[in-house]
């Protein structure tokens, strides 16, 4: 398993070891002195069962938490993420607690894309329009010319 998973297991195992060490057989026999004096072997086997059952239950619980929380996979991916960040010293970004603020960066790349689209569209339209405007101006000149021609002919006739 990954570093996180190993560490998790190691910490739990150490906890269990120390717990069993604390609740030693001596301690157990000492507390149940009256029964121990009567039945020392039985006391020992009851103690052994107590310890093994407790350990089994605790390991089972830990396994259940791991399964429910999908911890193996999460520890795995966390190790990778931590590995990728190992070069950087300074603290990384954290949610500000103001969704609008945090949303800005998520939106920014798309707004920038939108902006370049609009810029391109505007440029195309401006180029397009300036061509059409040339035609319109030429058309206006042509019409003025025609009107002048007509006027000349008309005057001539007049």
């Amino acid at each position, binding site marked *: 398993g990954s570093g996180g998973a190993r560490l998790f297991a190691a910490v739990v195992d150490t906890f269990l070891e120390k717990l069993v060490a604390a609740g030693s057989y001596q301690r157990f026999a000492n507390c149940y002195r009256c029964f121990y004096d009567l039945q020392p072997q039985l006391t020992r086997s009851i103690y052994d069962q107590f310890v093994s059952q407790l350990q089994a239950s605790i390991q089972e619980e830990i396994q259940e938490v791991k399964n429910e929380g999908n911890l193996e996979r999460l520890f795995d991916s966390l190790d990778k993420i931590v590995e990728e960040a190992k070069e950087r010293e300074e603290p990384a970004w954290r*949610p500000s607690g103001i*969704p609008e603020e*945090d*949303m800005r960066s*998520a*939106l920014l790349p*798309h*707004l920038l*894309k*939108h902006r370049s*689209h*609009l810029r391109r*569209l505007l440029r195309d339209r401006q180029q397009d329009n300036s061509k059409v405007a040339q035609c319109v101006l030429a058309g206006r000149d042509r019409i003025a010319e025609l009107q002048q021609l007509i006027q000349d002919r008309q005057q001539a006739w007049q």
Partner: protein
Amino acid sequence: FDELIVETAARRKQWPKKILVHAIQAMKAEQN
């Protein structure tokens, strides 16, 4: 309190993507 934290953290994880979907849709609609 715990549920609030988990709920808030889950939103922080998922909602930017959801919001982006709508924001991009809006931009595309505007472009069209």
